[in-house]
């Protein structure tokens, strides 16, 4: 393992703050989601629609595979010299009148943002949809300091008002349908000073109009905005946000102070590199040729836009991830959510089962890496390794390979921590021992034909004890035949 030094010790994302950890193991959380037919129908419909749209848009581009290769190569090259690029970014942002803050983890980032807001005297902020701030639990931290944070992205607003958690990277409220959204608005909006028409229906246009009225008031009154960033250009110190609704642009231009919280991996070296990612991202995420709004801002311009600009560079487990030779490619992720939409597991369980702001296949690798694999131990197993995510990923992250590597890291870490091996570890070691020599293996095969005795009467195997019970709960097991292939070969050709 090689280590990349960013001048910080390799810290993992801390416990007790933000949204990166499973509250309960994935299989248990998934069971609840699987038992909710409404939830499953909502997610199935939504992912199906985006999946088809994405496929159409991708098929339009003749050099899509080369674009993916370019994106992947650019990311790898960026990660290889991340420390120097970050320093360049800091210099450029500072030279253009911004202030850069380095946050080792969620606690530090929350403290920095809170004190920046407090210094302005404001008691509320408007927010552009940002995964990083959900990751660190910024809204909760601000609330504890008496500062109200208003989400301005429609889906994020629905999640916030529903006192819910996001369940998708792009569409955090994907698990809600229109009727549910109307109920949330009817219940919550009046308390926020926004009048709700008595005959509010669940027609999307009406719901959008209501949220627009609510948000307009916030945009016009807010003096501070908090955003994330999709990209940061090291050579110029430029930050970029792409979005569909235009709310982000309002937040990025109207308030006096803009605080941007960004994971340190979101960097690209030059402007020219954006050319690749601004093609890959919209087609992969919303299935659009181009996203409706692309905002870029560079430092402070007197008389135009925010007059105070802060950039908080967040580590929170990223340099530890970068230090892992195999795992570091998870940092290439541009958060397009294509892997979620094609994932058969995500489609059935939804995002909450993953316990993290990053659900789906990328979450199953990224969350355990940011927290340390023991703190998200069930996530690397929450995949059938079908590989659909790898095919969909615009920057070619080999998620199945990362999952397999993380499983190995988890098994090995467990073995180191616990002197008594798990039942599974014993079984695996026994199987490996048996299969490492053909004589032992043949003996074991003969013994396994004991199953034939069990099945003699019915021609089917009976319900079996744990752990095979989990198989036989919904599936039959084949009855071992009289003769193995090996025996047949010996008899016929031997």
């Amino acid at each position, binding site marked *: 393992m090689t280590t990349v030094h960013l001048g910080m010790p390799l810290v993992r994302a801390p416990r007790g703050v933000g949204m990166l950890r499973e509250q309960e193991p*994935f*299989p248990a959380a*998934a*069971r609840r989601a*699987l038992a909710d037919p409404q939830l499953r129908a909502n997610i199935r419909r939504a992912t199906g629609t985006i999946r088809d749209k994405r496929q159409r848009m991708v098929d339009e581009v003749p050099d899509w595979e080369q674009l993916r290769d370019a994106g992947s190569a650019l990311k790898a090259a960026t990660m290889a010299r991340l420390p120097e690029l970050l320093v360049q970014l800091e210099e450029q942002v500072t030279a253009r009148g911004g202030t850069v803050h380095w946050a080792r983890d969620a606690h530090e980032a929350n403290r920095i943002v809170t004190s920046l807001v407090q210094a302005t005297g404001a008691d509320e902020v408007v927010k552009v949809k940002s995964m990083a701030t959900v990751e660190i639990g910024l809204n909760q931290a601000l609330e504890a300091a008496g500062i109200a944070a208003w989400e301005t992205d429609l889906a994020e607003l629905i999640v916030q008002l529903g006192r819910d958690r996001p369940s998708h990277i792009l569409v955090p409220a994907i698990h809600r349908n229109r009727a549910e959204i109307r109920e949330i608005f009817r219940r919550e909006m009046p308390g926020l000073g926004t009048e709700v028409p008595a005959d509010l229906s669940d027609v999307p246009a009406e719901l959008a109009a209501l949220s627009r009225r609510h948000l307009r008031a916030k945009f016009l009154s807010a003096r501070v905005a908090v955003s994330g960033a999709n990209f940061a250009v090291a050579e110029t110190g430029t930050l970029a946000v792409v979005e569909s609704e235009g709310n982000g642009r309002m937040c990025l231009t109207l308030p006096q102070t803009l605080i941007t919280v960004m994971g340190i991996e979101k960097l690209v070296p030059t402007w020219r590199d954006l050319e690749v990612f601004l093609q890959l991202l919209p087609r992969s995420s919303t299935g659009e040729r181009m996203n409706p709004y692309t905002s870029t801002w560079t430092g402070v311009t007197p008389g135009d836009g925010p007059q105070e600009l802060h950039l908080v560079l967040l580590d929170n487990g990223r340099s530890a991830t970068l230090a892992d030779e195999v795992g570091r490619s998870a940092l290439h992720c541009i958060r397009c959510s294509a892997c979620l939409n094609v994932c*058969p*597991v995500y489609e*059935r*369980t939804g995002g909450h089962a993953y316990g993290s702001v990053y659900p789906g296949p990328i979450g199953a690798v990224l969350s355990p890496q940011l927290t340390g694999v023991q703190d998200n131990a069930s996530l*690397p*197993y*929450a*995949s*059938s*390794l*079908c*590989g*659909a995510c*790898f*095919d969909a990923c615009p920057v070619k992250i080999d998620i199945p*390979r990362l999952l*397999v590597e993380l*499983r*190995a*890291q*988890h*098994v*090995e870490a467990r073995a180191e921590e616990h002197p008594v091996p798990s039942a599974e*570890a014993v079984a*695996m*070691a026994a*199987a*490996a021992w048996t*299969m*490492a*020599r*053909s004589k032992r*293996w043949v003996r074991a*095969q003969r013994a*396994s034909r004991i199953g034939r005795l069990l099945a003699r009467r019915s021609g*089917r195997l009976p319900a079996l004890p744990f*752990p*095979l019970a*989990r*198989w036989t*709960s*919904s*599936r*039959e*097991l*084949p009855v*071992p*035949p009289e003769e*193995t*292939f*090996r025996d*047949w*070969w*010996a008899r016929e*050709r031997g």
Partner: protein
Amino acid sequence: MRIALLVTCLVDTLYPDVGRATVTLLERLGHEVVFPDRQTCCGQMHVNSGYQRDALPLVRHHVEVFEPYDVVVAPSGSCVGSVRHQHAMVARRAGDDRLAARAEAVAGRIYELSELLVDVLGVEDVGAAYPHRVTYHPTCHSLRLLRVGDKLLRLLRHVRGLDLVELPEADQCCGFGGTFALKNADTSTAMLADKMRHVLSTGAEACTAGDSSCLMHIGGGLARLRSGTRTVHLAEILAATEQPA
């Protein structure tokens, strides 16, 4: 051509007919099949469950057994995928670069059955007859790890009497995933339920694929439903002829 058969531990133990069909088919096409009987298991279950250290002796054993052969075939996309994409990785992770190089050489000579037939032997019509209504499930490892594309379909289209019906949402995973089916049994079962719904919607008598493991999963589910729809491995279809065997 002299072809070594990696029969896979699952076929050897539970589905010997698939192994026999593979032999019958290749011999009918005029090739010599050898069965290196010291073979055991490719170690995929260990690797995919996180027991890479335990998999190391299995990888070494596999390399030793199959090193002498120029062409190896397995009636299993997932085992070929494991040999091709995981063996060298396991060796390298354990710090054994020499073994990794040997594993890569062996991996370069192993083919899944449809790859062997179409790419190496250059046949699409193997002279099979199978007068049944059949639907085809392209397994994840064949489809995405090996990129077999439509090779299996091309082989099936040449089978006399075979009525091939398209499977809706064919490229969705059946939910097997090795120990995934046990560790995440509920999610796996939900995936299987959709796969079975699609299979049954075709009205096919049988569902075929190039992997016994996925067929074991789908077949296990269909049997529980007592649906009457069978699963049958590609090799068994291709080995079938009009003459009684």
